[in-house]
């Protein structure tokens, strides 16, 4: 497969995001049922681990890619890369905005109806509001990367 430096870089970001945060969200879902304080502490530990891993993986693999493609890394993004980046950002931003409004809606509903707080979630995930926001952000990133790769493969 004939891929540019930028496309390879996006593949690295997409795969690492899906694997690391996929694992994170599966682990967080399995926390439902645990005592609230234990679940919160474990969720925070998991999020710190995910954050550390994504930084580590990105630095290592993007560094290796740049070292093996010095010329392309120096050239940076050309007009086609920038166009696809712009299109990807548009799609990703839309997803992020939807997630933010869902989170805001949840906050407002719980503020107006405090009696719902105890029974507001069927998932019983610790720090649910923060996780909805985090999921929206990660999903928007996945949509952003996928859109760019779609344009690289299918053309424009």
């Amino acid at each position, binding site marked *: 497969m*004939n891929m540019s430096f930028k496309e390879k870089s996006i593949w690295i970001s997409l795969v690492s995001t899906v694997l690391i945060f996929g694992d994170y969200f599966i682990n967080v879902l399995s926390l439902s049922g645990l005592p609230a304080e234990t679940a919160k502490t474990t969720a925070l530990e998991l999020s710190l681990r995910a954050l550390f891993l994504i930084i580590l993986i990105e630095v290592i693999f993007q560094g290796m890619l740049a070292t093996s493609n010095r010329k392309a890394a120096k050239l940076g993004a*050309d007009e*086609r*890369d920038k166009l696809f980046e712009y299109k990807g950002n548009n799609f990703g931003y839309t997803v992020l905005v939807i997630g933010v409004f869902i989170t805001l809606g949840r906050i407002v509903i719980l503020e107006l109806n405090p009696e719902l707080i105890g029974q507001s979630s069927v998932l019983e995930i610790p720090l649910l509001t923060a996780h909805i926001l985090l999921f929206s952000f990660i999903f928007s990133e996945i949509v952003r990367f996928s859109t760019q790769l779609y*344009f690289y493969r*299918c053309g424009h």
Partner: protein
Amino acid sequence: MVTNLATLPIKNKIRELRFFAEEMTQQELAELVGVTRQTIMAIEKCKYSPTLEVAFKIAEVFGQSIDEVFQYHSA
């Protein structure tokens, strides 16, 4: 939105011009124009329509006018 290869209105004869320019490679043309080789390849295959700036640069490399290199075919 994504436009498939059959409906892209801008065609070009870069492949032919490269051949007559002592079989210039896509990489050489890319370096002269300041884009990646994959972008030149996408332009040649009509999978990507370049900006005016890049179109002018490509035409300049071959010493041709822009409409000799690129042709617009309306649907």
